[in-house]
């Protein structure tokens, strides 16, 4: 699973795109450590967050995306607010999306101090992540790098659209849906935030950065208007 790799964009744009997540957390059975992990992520202004609660009869996935409320739910895509997530006593260690590098540094520092034992991965600009590691007194331990895309690259959509769609690594967000939603924004029948939330909903892993998407939509409209 490499679903947060291959995100595209300029350095400036990627400075607003960070993901922190854990994997293989099932080996840690102390549920209080899981909840503590999520408390730290929730404390530092995530724009997206994903976890599972074991409260109730069946495990329930909880997805927070800034700007997504229950009035925009559809199909299997159900929203949760941070307040709702905080109300659960049991939360599984999961993932969160951040837009501010200072928040990423703060999360890493707290995770290091908490010493919960989870394997933690940060996706973003290597140089900055490694700077944060140094400040926190940890790794980097191992990296997964993107060497690019090869083959029949002429089949790929417009690079500006790809900057948006590659924020869902499984590519559950169709380029045609993105174009359609941008058209709705252009026509004035949808807000930029609602368009970004509609895109984010399709990313079931919840690693889509709704804040960055809004800025990319805005830029796309501005650039195509100028052209």
């Amino acid at each position: 699973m490499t679903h947060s790799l291959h995100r595209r964009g300029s350095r400036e744009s990627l400075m607003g795109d960070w993901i922190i997540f854990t994997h293989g957390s099932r080996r840690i059975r102390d549920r209080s450590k899981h909840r503590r992990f999520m408390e730290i992520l929730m404390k530092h202004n995530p724009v997206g967050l994903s976890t599972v609660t074991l409260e109730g009869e069946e495990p329930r996935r909880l997805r927070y995306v800034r700007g997504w409320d229950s009035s925009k739910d559809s199909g299997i895509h159900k929203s949760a607010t941070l307040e709702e997530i905080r109300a659960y006593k049991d939360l599984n260690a999961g993932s969160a999306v951040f837009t501010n590098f200072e928040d990423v540094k703060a999360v890493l520092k707290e995770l290091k101090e908490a010493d919960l034992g989870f394997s933690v991965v940060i996706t973003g600009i290597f140089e900055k992540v490694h700077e944060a590691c140094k400040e926190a007194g940890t790794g980097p331990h191992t990296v997964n790098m993107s060497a690019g895309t090869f083959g029949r690259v002429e089949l790929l959509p417009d690079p500006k659209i790809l900057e948006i769609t590659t924020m869902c690594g499984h590519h559950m967000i169709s380029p045609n849906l993105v174009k359609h939603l941008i058209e709705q924004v252009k026509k004035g029948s949808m807000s930029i935030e609602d368009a970004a939330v509609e895109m984010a909903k399709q990313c079931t892993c919840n690693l889509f950065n709704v804040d960055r998407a809004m800025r990319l939509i805005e830029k796309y409209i501005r650039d195509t208007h100028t052209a």
Partner: protein
Amino acid sequence: MIDEDECVECGECQKAGVCPVDAHVRPEYGWPRVLRYYWSDPLAVFPWTGIAGRGTAEMKTNDVTGRFTDDVVGIGVEFGRPGIGSRLSDVEKASIRLAALGVEFEPENPWTHLIDPRTGRLKDSRVRREKVLSCIIECKAPKEKVDEIYNTLMEVAGEIDTVFSLDIISKCKDGEVILKPLLDEAGIKVRINGKTNVGLGRPLIP
């Protein structure tokens, strides 16, 4: 109309709940069509690995598992990504070439379960026509082979009817990426962003 030959069975149309008459239904998948669902729907779990998603934990838990050591390069070849999809016959082309280079295929990866790892060939030829949203070959090799592997994959890129995205995994030492000098020497460029395991994992914590 859904073109059944092109449909990768990701289920996104149904999951989105946008059809006013609820016309999207999942069919009963037989073999080998069920492979489309396993590789295209992130919520599907591969029955023979018990893992959801297309691949494994790769470097995400390397601080605990030690799967990638200082002298090893990890490779992920993600066929069909981003968003184009791939016939498994195209994946096999790379798989055969990588096997010839003597790479070690990741035993827990779903693709490895379909092939003879000595040859990289599919064990069941019926699956070649199946189209999936994305299928990852995961393997590792001595780090000195990174140049040879990369050049071989560039040859494969000219023989396929889709795209692949290439992942290169390296351990770090004293804050530096161990593989970087070899990548620079070979002229292999990587993006400025990617995934970093920050080394907070502790083995055997209850």
